């Protein structure tokens, strides 16, 4: 069972494709005869090797100039779709791809199925599975209506596997006129120094919730333990909403999905909003004062206790462990 042509909206981290792009390529080549990428950026040549290796047979590349990349991506896709008629376009649920798929959906008048965790064919139907209610339930939704179908998939939904393909040829597309939308300009980019791995790619994630008590406790409890274990630090929605840590740290339904080898939840009660973003972790350790907290229903080891008492002793013990 396959469909003809699937495109992946590619994104990069420096001069490499984003992991989420490689995940989408791996899935795309499982279901499609032809897999191609559309990429907004000035370094497509640097990515072409890896994109080809993971299954892309062509990279349509467009330069954004100083405009917001998603806006240019949508405008370029309108023209490319008219010329080449893809059946399905896959986007990762990221900041820039969300801008692109949202604008494209209006221009093409197509629905977008978002937050996909699964993607499969059933005959000639394309079906996207989305986790709801804290990941307890999966809703399968099929596209109806005209192609191309537009689907946005949460990063970490599929494993990225090389197809040992050769470098994909790059076809440069002229930067389209995006009209008033194109008046949104990027003035300056700020790269925040990060110690340790990225949140979505870390083998160990330590997250803090309301139970840590204050913004000031996040550093010595959450960051410190994460650093010690060479992991990344995350957060529940409650403390992002409270302004203790930025949105980029949020794990959960309206944040990031993580699937580390070990997830440590500190002072997190485990609302469904949070569970959907982390219950795919291999092993879960939770420390929380409330023994009835739902986080314990998914934890492999649960400690009913005060994070302010347990965590400092734990940090000391790990340091002493050497």
């Amino acid at each position, binding site marked *: 069972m396959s469909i003809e042509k699937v495109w992946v909206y590619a994104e990069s981290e420096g001069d490499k494709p984003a992991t989420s792009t490689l995940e989408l390529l791996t899935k795309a080549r499982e279901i499609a005869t032809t897999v191609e990428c559309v990429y907004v950026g000035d370094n497509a040549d640097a990515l072409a090797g890896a994109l080809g290796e993971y299954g892309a047979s062509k990279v349509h590349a467009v330069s954004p100039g100083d405009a917001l990349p998603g806006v240019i991506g949508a405008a370029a896709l309108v023209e490319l779709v008219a010329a080449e008629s893809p059946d399905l376009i896959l986007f990762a649920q990221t900041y820039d791809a969300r801008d692109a798929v949202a604008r494209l959906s209006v221009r093409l008048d197509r629905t977008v199925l*978002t937050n996909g965790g699964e993607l499969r064919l059933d005959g000639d139907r394309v079906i996207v599975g989305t986790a709801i*209610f804290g990941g307890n339930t999966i809703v399968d939704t099929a596209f109806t209506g005209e192609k191309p179908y537009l689907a*946005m998939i949460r990063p970490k939904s599929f494993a990225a596997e090389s197809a040992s393909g050769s470098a994909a040829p790059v076809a440069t597309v002229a930067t389209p006129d995006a009209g008033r939308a*194109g008046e949104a300009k990027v003035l300056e980019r700020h790269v925040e120094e990060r110690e340790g791995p990225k949140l979505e790619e870390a083998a160990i994630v330590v997250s803090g919730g309301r139970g840590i008590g204050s913004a000031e406790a996040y550093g010595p409890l959450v960051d410190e333990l994460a650093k010690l274990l060479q992991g990344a630090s995350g957060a529940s929605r409650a403390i992002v*909403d409270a302004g203790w840590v*930025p949105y980029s740290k949020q794990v959960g339904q309206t944040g990031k999905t993580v699937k580390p080898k070990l997830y440590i939840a500190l002072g997190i009660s485990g609302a469904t909003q949070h569970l959907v973003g982390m219950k795919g972790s291999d092993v879960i350790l939770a420390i929380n004062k409330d023994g009835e907290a739902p986080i314990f229903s*998914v934890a492999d080891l649960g*400690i*009913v*206790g005060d994070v302010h008492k347990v965590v400092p002793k734990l940090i000391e013990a790990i340091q002493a462990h050497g």
Partner: protein
Amino acid sequence: MNIAVCVKQIPDPAVPGELNPETSALKREGKLILDDSDSYGVEMALQLVTAAGGGEVTLVSMAPNNETSGLRTALAMGAAKAVLVSDDTLAGSDALSTAKILAKSVERVGDIDLVLTATESTDGYTGTIPAQIAEALGWPSLTFAKSVAIADGKVKIQRQTEAGFDDVEAPLPAVVSVTAGVVEPRYPSFKGIMEAKKKPVDEVTAGDLGFNPDQVGWAGSHQEIVEVRAAPAREAGEKIEDDGESHARIVTFLEGLKII
């Protein structure tokens, strides 16, 4: 400075959700509340209007059963008025139809310089509506704002990125989505709550905005729910009370995983 804020009225997220067995859509029949995610946009709008020295904040919302309880919360915070789109043909609308409806509602208000939204709703969380509204209006959009400033007819934000943040700007009118936690939403005062009861809510139907029934709701959404199934369950493991020595148990646990 006139600002429209898109707000969603949702079932209380603390109460477990349920699907309608016939349509597999989320049940939204009961009392609805203001989505917490939207309180940041409302607060930001109130602050920007104050900083501009004039203008007003108008709420734009789509909800079943002419529900206004969530709108009243935002009106009590200080918004001047609201447009509420409500009719039975809208049930089952996808994000695209919803964005088209909200964009038409913004046009109905008229003379709007800036539209503010959350990054995504708590219940539907597609995260596409802010840029869809902008595209439907033909306006620029600045998404995922960590801070918002307006000067010389332009809006400038710090935009969250994977690597850090970007300074991004666009001329007004524009759409901006704000991330949670960037401002501290005020609590409505008693006076605000009393005044909110009298503030105007313009209740309209999809037809009033120029939509046919086949363009919205289930008919206009071009998707079909084919199955609702249980996900593989995760079992609870060992649970112990901290007796002052539980860190030792964790150390053994981490050793077992070969992490230390």
